[in-house]
């Protein structure tokens, strides 16, 4: 599949996965890969305190957006974060409740409302994303969603609120967000995992929950941290190595072989249990991810997308 076509198939991509699998790295990589096809991309962080901006070599985003990537012949990537509290106050203000918004924030009433209507904050974050989509602020909006477990809760919030607040303006907001989530031309989820047993199990659970309980269409899954194979791993280390170096090389080769065997087993299991295409991102063996590493990951994502079959 052509990467340009891939990134044009939905206007919002929600990137979700459990903690520690590289969800933010995947979000940033997808944003860069999309920008390299000429698109303007808005990368939205929901969890806050995330590292995506620094991967582009920029400062952390505030509530206001900032441009983190803008290269000639490519599109752009802008970053911003949306916090639930800000989204709630903003929404109340926009709906003619500015007086109550201030009062609620001050008196702690906000907490009671949030308790009475669980999911209200998640809904309003999604509502803000829906508004950005409607305004056409970018060709593609990529959302770095909260960690799984939370991801399901986050995506189920609109249905929960619709059923709790059965009248009032909040109900209308919930219905509008559900319309966006239900339409694959507007919104898809991409789940991220690593090729290890527990993360793969959670990926499968999350995938079924997202489709069955939320009704959100799933794009390909992103598998991060793939160890590249090495030819001749079982060979003896070269004779010119010192005994210590040779012992280290054997140990590293054994560990690599074991980890690759584990990875192959998990990738096969995932393929058998979850019939979704896979986009693979290699392990980089670097300690930090900056612009250079991000481009290397985007190369791998592009190659993965080119190998996908068209779904249109």
């Amino acid at each position, binding site marked *: 599949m052509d990467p340009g076509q891939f990134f044009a198939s939905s206007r919002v991509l929600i990137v979700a996965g459990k903690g520690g699998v590289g969800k933010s790295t995947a979000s940033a990589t997808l944003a860069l890969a999309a920008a390299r096809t000429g698109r303007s991309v808005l990368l939205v962080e929901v969890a806050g305190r995330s590292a995506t901006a620094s991967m582009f070599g920029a400062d952390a985003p505030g509530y206001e957006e900032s441009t983190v990537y803008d290269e000639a012949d490519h599109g752009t990537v802008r970053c911003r974060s949306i916090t639930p509290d800000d989204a709630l106050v903003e929404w109340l203000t926009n709906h003619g409740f500015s007086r109550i918004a201030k009062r609620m924030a001050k008196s702690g009433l906000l907490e009671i409302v949030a308790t009475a209507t669980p999911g209200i904050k998640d809904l309003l974050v999604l509502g803000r994303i829906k508004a950005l989509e409607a305004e056409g602020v970018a060709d593609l909006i990529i959302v770095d969603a909260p960690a799984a477990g939370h991801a399901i809760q986050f995506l189920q919030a609109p249905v929960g609120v619709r059923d709790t607040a059965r009248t009032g303006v909040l109900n209308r907001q919930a219905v509008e967000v559900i319309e966006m989530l239900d339409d694959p031309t507007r919104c898809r989820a991409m789940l991220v995992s690593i090729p290890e047993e527990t993360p793969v199990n959670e990926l499968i659970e999350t995938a079924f929950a997202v489709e069955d309980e939320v009704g959100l269409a799933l794009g390909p899954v992103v598998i991060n941290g793939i160890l590249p194979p090495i030819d001749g791993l079982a060979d003896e280390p070269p004779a010119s190595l010192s005994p210590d*170096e040779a012992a280290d090389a054997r140990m590293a080769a054994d560990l690599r072989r074991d980890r690759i065997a584990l990875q192959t087993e998990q990738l096969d299991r995932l393929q058998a249990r979850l019939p979704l295409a896979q986009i693979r991102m290699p392990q980089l063996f670097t300690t930090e991810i900056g612009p250079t590493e991000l481009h290397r990951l985007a190369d791998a994502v592009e190659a993965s997308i080119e190998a996908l079959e068209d779904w249109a």
Partner: protein
Amino acid sequence: MSGPAPASMSTIPSYRDLAERCEVIVCCGTGGVGKTTTAAATAMAAAAMGRRAAVVTIDPAKRLADALGIGELGNDPTVIEGPWPGTLAALMLDTKATFDAVVRRHAGSDQQAETILANRFYRNISTSLSGTQDYMAVEKLAELHSSGEWDLVVVDTPPTRDALAFLEAPKLLTRLLDNPIYRVLISPSKGVLRAVNRAATSVVRQLSRVVGAEVVDDAIEFFQAFQGMEDGFRERADATLTLLGADQTAFVLVASPRADTLVEAKYFLDRLGKADLDAAAVVVNRVLPTLSIDAARAAELQALHPGGPVQALADHAAAAAGDDDRIVDLLSAAPGATVARVPLLPSDVHDVDTLRRIAELLTEG
């Protein structure tokens, strides 16, 4: 200062000491760093010393059952049989069931309990409110600790970016009850409050326009039904907070050497420190085995001998480069903590034998 008092001023209790002497160990840290595994291995280490240890997991994913190689865990401790002199038990926190039990315990009558349990606002609190999981984990911990059946209770905290979410959890409900609006909602017609009520009524009316009238009615019904139970909840919250801050309670920070998780780990230490709760131990999981050469030498060798085992060596050295520096940097933020490094294992942890190996690695150093 948390953790048992050191034997002398100059010694930091080892991980072994913690597993041997503590009554409560709280494992905290971000997701994906092996927190659940560490919690289970810690309880297992205590069982190996002949103690009666229970581990509570609050993770919605069934990771602990996976690691223990058993199918299902319930809301009460399940004893895991194995070749250890003590007792090892595990449970998977059922947030709603635990909350229901707490309400029943504090209610003045069965009828009061049933009214609350049937209320929709309560059902929201007990199932979907963020923080409820932490709150009920602390409740469960306090319940197991006070039962006298366990020498050590280990708790695996939910993945969160904020260490203090767990510490603030016991106040979840009392904070709602301390809200001035609560007093107004429960006494809508008392004379002295009439003026306050006029303002409150206008707030309630506006609220109804936002969230719908049923939601507001449910909330008012909940607060009215709750009357008489406030003191019980407050006392319990105070008692559990005291337990969390007690000398026989230790906080263990679990991390991995990856740059992003160490940033989060430092933030955790900072938050714990601000609450006067120093981490008694830092566990760094998934540490790559140490090499005799550095990354630069490995890269040199790789240039001479591309591919094969030397490539594996160079990748390993590059990935490990800086890990040590970052771990040392993290530890500088926790001067009073003992450190346990658990190497990256060749397979996933999904059986009792691997867990025992980790328990040994934690306590031998």
